[in-house]
């Protein structure tokens, strides 16, 4: 890797980090506005025009609050917990192809930080490490509600990871590649994977809700039973990290869904306009973000529409509903490709 590429990647890395944080910050605002809209309220409207400065005010409040570590807590692990949650949430962004390639000064730069050969599996690895943030934090609090929340989170995430992985296997059968860059470039034109894998998409998005601990699957922090779930004992910015990690996860999983099933930065008819390549790339990135925001809106819409599942219903849905469906999907896809490849 030569120096200019290295510099470009470093700058790009910081841009993505910044964008991720800003999107996560304004997701909190967006969520409250969407909730207000659904419930016929106004939502935050005091700080700045339309309440746009509300996330900054919230962040400031988080920083200024007194930091409390319970006397009986395991101090080291209590601090490590939120750090793991935040770190793994941020690490996932590096494999997502944010756009095509830009040509600057006769040199081509791909708008993806790392085009890993196994990009989609990398996302899974990060998600599976992310469980530790919740588990360690919940255990280290030394509070029974926090422990119950942590255990619920762990069992829920392990259960839904299975179905999620299986829905991806069917997708990999159709695309024949594990690299996210390759998967996106195959969806050029209107060949979006959602048309080829509708059942897989349904399973994947259901599991994504469960993996990000969003309603209707937010059992780990179910406030009617567990006070605050795994972050009951947390205060100030450590609590902020947990909440923020949830919003980052939502952003990243929306990006992954848009990449895998909605063609990523591809948009039909964009190539027919006869624009320069750099313009096409930037427009593609813009469309990609529009898809991501649409997905985030879907996440919020569902949160404020559906009531929370009961715990046994959650496990039944995961093990008896989604996993058999995912296996059926794999078999159907396999049989289809077996017979079409033969002819």
């Amino acid at each position: 890797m030569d120096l200019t590429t290295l510099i470009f990647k470093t700058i790009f890395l910081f841009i993505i980090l910044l964008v991720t944080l800003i999107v996560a910050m304004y997701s909190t605002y967006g969520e409250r506005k969407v909730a207000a809209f659904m419930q016929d309220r106004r939502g935050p409207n005091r700080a700045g025009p339309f309440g746009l400065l509300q996330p900054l005010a919230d962040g400031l409040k988080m920083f200024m609050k007194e930091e409390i570590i319970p006397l009986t807590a395991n101090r080291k692990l209590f601090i490590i917990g939120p750090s793991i949650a935040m770190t793994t949430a941020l690490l996932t962004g590096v494999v997502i192809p944010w756009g095509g390639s830009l040509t600057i000064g006769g040199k081509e730069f791909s708008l993806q930080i790392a085009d890993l050969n196994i990009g989609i599996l990398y996302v899974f690895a990060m998600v599976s490490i992310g469980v530790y943030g919740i588990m360690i934090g919940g255990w280290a609090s030394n509070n029974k509600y926090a422990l119950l929340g942590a255990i619920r989170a762990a069992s829920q995430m392990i259960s839904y990871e299975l179905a999620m992985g299986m829905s991806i296997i069917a997708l990999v059968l159709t695309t024949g590649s594990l690299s996210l860059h390759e998967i996106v470039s195959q969806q050029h034109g209107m060949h979006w994977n959602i048309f080829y894998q509708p059942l897989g998409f349904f399973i994947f998005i259901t599991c994504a809700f469960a993996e990000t601990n969003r309603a209707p699957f937010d059992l780990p922090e179910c406030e009617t039973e567990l006070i605050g779930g795994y972050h009951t004992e947390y205060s100030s910015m450590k609590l902020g990290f947990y909440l923020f990690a949830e919003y980052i996860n939502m952003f990243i999983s929306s990006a992954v869904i848009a990449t895998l099933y909605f063609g990523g930065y591809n948009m039909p008819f964009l190539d027919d306009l006869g624009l320069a390549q750099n313009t096409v790339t930037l427009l593609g990135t813009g469309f990609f973000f529009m898809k991501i925001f649409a997905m985030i809106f879907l996440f919020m819409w569902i949160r404020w529409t559906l009531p929370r599942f009961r715990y046994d219903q959650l496990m039944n849905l995961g093990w008896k509903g989604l996993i058999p469906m995912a296996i059926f999907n794999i078999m159907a896809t396999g049989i289809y490709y077996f017979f079409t490849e033969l002819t």
Partner: protein
Amino acid sequence: MIFLFYFLSAIMIICALAVVFSKNPINNVIYLIVCFLAMAGHYILLNAQFLAVVHVIVYTGAIMVLFLFVIMLLNLNKAIILRKSTVTRVSAVITGGIFFLVLLAATRQTFEIHARYPFTSEFGLVTGIGTVLFNEFLLPFEMSSILFISAMVGALMLGKKDV
């Protein structure tokens, strides 16, 4: 590169020793997790991206979560000091020693296999592993999956109260 190798190896050895000598069960599990992550780093140094990621998903992400889960459920908060009788200790040492011998013998056998498969940077990628696994080791591969299924069914049967 060589610096990274020594760095990862040092982490692995320190964490592995900490797993053995630490008294708190939760700390043991966490040290083992760090040890596994460092091992994934070793795979990446060999350009075996697929192996590294699968290692993280399976061992770090699934098996160790279950370990942590069980320890949390048993609520082994306090450091436990085991007091075993002399007979148990001596037999434990002998069993451990025999297991070490088996491992040593198995490691010696791998030299022969190394010679048959010269190292290429493509080996740890998906295509490399897939080609070897499904061409040369198809039967053992399928057998092991049957073994997994039977183990899972067996665990279910044991877990059920009335069969």
